[in-house]
């Protein structure tokens, strides 16, 4: 299996990268390549030129900034999975990263690449949606910041411009008494989700829900927020009764696809089941 021919560029600075993307019609950024190269080998994707940004420096880091945790776009899943600060404060991200593909894929795949690939069934985009992260994007006219809710536009499509590159993911710190988790329902652990649910909760006195964000994967063209369930829970006690009631409306607005592993109907049901479980998991981790 050989990809179609393409031109290859390996810029060493971000500006070079942007220039090449700008100058070359039908060019595509290559980060970890764990999804893109497979599609190119199957000859479903055949970009005329490939811009390999893996040689760019200072794009792989996990850094504690004042208001947010900054993760470099070229940070591989394996680093995220094992980062202690992330484990302590954003367990949802540890859950998601550790469930991506397998060890070799986690050794090569990057958070930026996975986000830009925007497969609605992938693990990270769902978790990042629940975390309401911001994506830092650099282009010809400098830098801009895209909130997760505006980042994912359609299947395999983001709001990142043709000659822009994602450089960093910013995760706002959670207030005290927060907990989070991600659960993937799939046939085998490393598979794409039949349904993936990420949840972040913040509670006050007596487990009153101050804030909750629920991200849903594999339920439409892009990762969704279960807004109706979120609304239901806000201000209520996060107990089993309310969690179950919220889960019942979690699939509101979801439009899942069908395939041999999960029909539309099955996925709509699983959204409820796994929203319930993920909320409980997140609650169990509140600290």
């Amino acid at each position, binding site marked *: 299996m050989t990809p179609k021919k393409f031109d290859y560029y390996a810029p060493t600075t971000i500006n070079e990268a942007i220039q090449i993307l700008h100058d070359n019609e039908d060019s595509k950024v290559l980060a970890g390549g764990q999804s893109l190269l497979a*599609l190119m080998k199957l000859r*479903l*994707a055949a970009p005329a030129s490939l811009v390999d940004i893996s040689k760019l420096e200072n794009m792989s880091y996990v850094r504690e900034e004042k208001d947010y945790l900054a993760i470099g776009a070229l940070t591989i899943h394996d680093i995220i999975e094992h980062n202690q600060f992330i484990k302590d404060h954003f367990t949802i991200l540890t859950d998601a990263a550790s469930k991506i593909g397998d060890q070799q894929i986690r050794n090569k795949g990057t958070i930026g690449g996975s986000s830009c690939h925007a497969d609605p069934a992938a693990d990270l985009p769902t978790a990042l949606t629940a975390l309401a992260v911001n994506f830092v994007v650099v282009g010809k006219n400098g830098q801009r910041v895209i909130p997760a809710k505006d980042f994912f536009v359609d299947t*395999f499509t983001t709001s990142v411009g043709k000659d822009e590159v994602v450089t960093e993911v910013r995760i706002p710190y959670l207030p005290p008494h927060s907990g989070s988790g991600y659960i993937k329902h799939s046939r085998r652990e490393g598979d794409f989700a039949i349904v993936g649910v990420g949840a972040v909760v913040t509670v006050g006195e007596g487990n009153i829900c101050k804030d909750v964000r629920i991200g849903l994967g594999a339920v439409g*063209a892009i990762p969704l927020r279960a807004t109706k369930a979120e609304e239901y829970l806000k201000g209520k006690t996060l107990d089993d009764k309310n969690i179950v009631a919220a889960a019942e409306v979690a699939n509101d607005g979801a439009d899942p*696809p069908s395939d*041999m592993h999960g029909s539309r109907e099955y996925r709509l049901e699983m959204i409820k089941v796994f929203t319930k479980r993920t909320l409980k998991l997140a609650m169990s981790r509140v600290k």
Partner: protein
Amino acid sequence: MHFEGTFNVKAPKEKVFGMMLDPNQISQCMPDLQKLEVKSPDDFTAVVKAGVSFIKGDFTLHFTTVEKTPPTHAKLVAHGTGIGSTVDLDTLMDIADAQGGGTSMKWSADAKIGGRIASVGQRLLNGQAEKIVKNLFECLQTKLEAA
């Protein structure tokens, strides 16, 4: 995959029928038209660039009108190939007077996709195919309203 829809326009039946079977009009509503060869109004070939995001390529679609009873009914059949895949599309159009004036256009499309895309893209296929077909008819509707 089966898709269908109905829309009403002011334009008279004949006009609607005419536009729905006019290769030049239809092709303008196809995704990213590359080339159009019209042998006859009932037999034409269009090359379009279609797909999902960067997973796209040129499809050569050969259209023939197999049923035609002006101005109320027509059946358009298309066979096409591209990126190691095949597309077979059966489109039915039924045109009638709408209650309260105007014309109602009822369409349905059966799409069969085979080969490389079907073998890998199963999870994504339906949604994207639906988008393409729906866009096509929405585009025709706007054209009719504009006309």
